[in-house]
């Protein structure tokens, strides 16, 4: 790719090269990383599946309806992944389960990123007593183990999907805020911020227009990694019965049901686990790829 670029610059159309946006440059660097590309493809497939399942799977008929006559069938043409203890098709449940993981994962990422960005950027920019108060409060949340925090919130407010998203985000916000705060602190003394201040730009505009876009790389990478972790956490919560409840086919809840039949029908435990691993792995690969692609040191 780099050879092609130099050719562009020296000969034919130097302007065309200049016009490449930041986003294009990131994409050019990203796609060089084959693993990251693989992660992106897998993730997109999972997202497409999770959006489109209602089009070809009927939740009431195919996902939660019990057909005791068909229970514990091994793989066949009609049921490629077999059926579970209530005769429900494992493949249908698995595909439907992607919805919960993707929805919760995206929700946690969006919530913890936006709260973390506002808290971290303002604490880092204003400093002083405000910074101290915010950071000390977050220290307290940081000291409570994440899973415990999530379980107690779910116990107090009920285990709906929005509550789960809030419960898990609360555990991620302190870390996110710290990361954003430290990158804002390094940014705020730079000349272009000084210039903006000299022009009497509003503080909120400086933070949202000038500082946060520059910290975007860190934000995106942390956001993706958080999403991967929270998908695993949600599966764990559902597994111990404090998350999404059966008969909903959340992958952790499926594993929790399958555990009861482990001795005789271990095959029920393979597919949901592999689905969690694939999803989390694809997101981790994307995060790693983005980290490299967004790193200015990696620029050609």
């Amino acid at each position, binding site marked *: 790719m780099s050879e092609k670029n130099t050719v562009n610059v020296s000969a034919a159309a130097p302007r065309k090269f200049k016009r490449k946006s930041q986003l294009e440059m990131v994409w050019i660097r990203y796609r060089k990383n084959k693993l990251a590309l693989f992660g992106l493809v897998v993730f997109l497939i999972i997202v497409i599946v999770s959006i489109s399942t209602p089009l070809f799977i009927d939740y009431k008929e195919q996902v939660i309806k019990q057909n005791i006559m068909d229970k514990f069938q091994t793989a066949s043409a009609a049921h490629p992944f077999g059926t579970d203890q209530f005769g429900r098709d494992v493949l249908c449940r698995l595909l439907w389960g992607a919805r919960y993981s993707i929805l919760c994962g995206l929700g946690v990422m969006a919530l913890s990123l936006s709260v973390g960005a506002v808290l971290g950027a303002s604490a880092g920019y204003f400093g002083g007593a405000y910074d101290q108060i915010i950071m000390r409060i977050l220290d307290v949340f940081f000291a409570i183990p994440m899973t415990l925090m999530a379980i107690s919130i779910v116990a107090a407010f009920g285990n709906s999907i929005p509550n789960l998203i809030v419960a898990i985000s609360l555990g991620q916000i302190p870390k996110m805020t710290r990361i954003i705060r430290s990158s804002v602190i390094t940014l705020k003394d730079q000349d272009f911020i000084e210039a903006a201040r000299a022009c009497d730009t509003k503080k909120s505009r400086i933070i949202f227009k000038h500082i946060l876009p520059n910290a975007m790389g860190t934000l995106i990478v942390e956001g993706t990694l958080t999403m991967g972790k929270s998908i695993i956490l949600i599966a764990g*919560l559902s597994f111990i019965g404090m998350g999404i409840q059966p008969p909903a086919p959340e992958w952790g809840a499926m*594993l929790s049901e399958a555990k009861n039949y482990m001795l005789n029908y*271990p095959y029920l435990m393979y597919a949901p*686990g592999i689905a969690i691993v694939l999803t989390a792995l694809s997101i981790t690969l994307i995060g790693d790829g983005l980290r490299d692609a967004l790193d200015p040191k990696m620029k050609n």
Partner: protein
Amino acid sequence: MVKYIVKRLILIIPIIFGISIILFTIMNLTPGDPAQMLIGDTYTEEALDQLRAELGLDKPFFQQYIDYIWNALHGDFGISYRTRNPVFDEVFSRFPHTVAITFLSIIIQVVVGVIVGIVAAVKQYSLLDTVSQAITMVLASVPDFWIGLMLLLLFSVKLGLLPLSGIENWTGYILPAVAVALPYMANLIRLTRSTMLDVMRMDYIDTAKAKGVPKKKIIFKHALKNALLPVVTLAGVNISWMLGGTIVIEQVFNIPGIGSLMITSIRNKDTPVVMATVMFIAVLSCLINLATDLIYAAIDPRVKAQIKG
């Protein structure tokens, strides 16, 4: 040094207060009346009221919190609403299991993680490096409870080597410890490898090479000591996470540790037990963080100078 330690210990106090307020509020919002859960199906209104008064549940929320803190400061953490045993007995009868898993697991992850990390860095781009890179990438994305289930299937159900559930002797700790260790180990391998690679590029390693120092000595004496610094920090963080993070794994292996105590207590609105357990874990992780920083200072003279100053 002493001044630094005292300062760090004092900083724990507001954190514990904060945790107590947050948890007390959350537990208060949890639906259900502990007195009603405790008394069973057949009861008279008077008996219920009496029990409420006995547990201090008839007072307003704020008064309850003040009472709790006042008693806690005097070393009285109350009695469990569920079993009516002192909270301390409840917590300490469960704690050894969790500690056993945590420490077995940290030994596994540090020993394996550091060795594999060093080998991968020294033999960069070798087959072993590539394989270990691939495995760590996958391991970091595998939920520990699923690893636990798969290990159970292999070693307990198929091979019959290890117990299926519960803790009869120490062999019961092996599988849970390995299951918890693997995802953390993946991070340790990655970190050891990357810091080792960074250190190996330093000028003083080149100097040592130029002086003709044998390769083994360079790796173990010059490089490893510097590469271990971030590893110590990560291992410390991992310990404090595992103390509160073995909840799910304890459910897989039916281990009566802190995790299962927390779940039953939260479900039964057993506020005193929940409060004591979380505060205990929080104090412990603050102390472990402090210990990590002190170890760090002991290894790195540059940090030591900062702490002393």
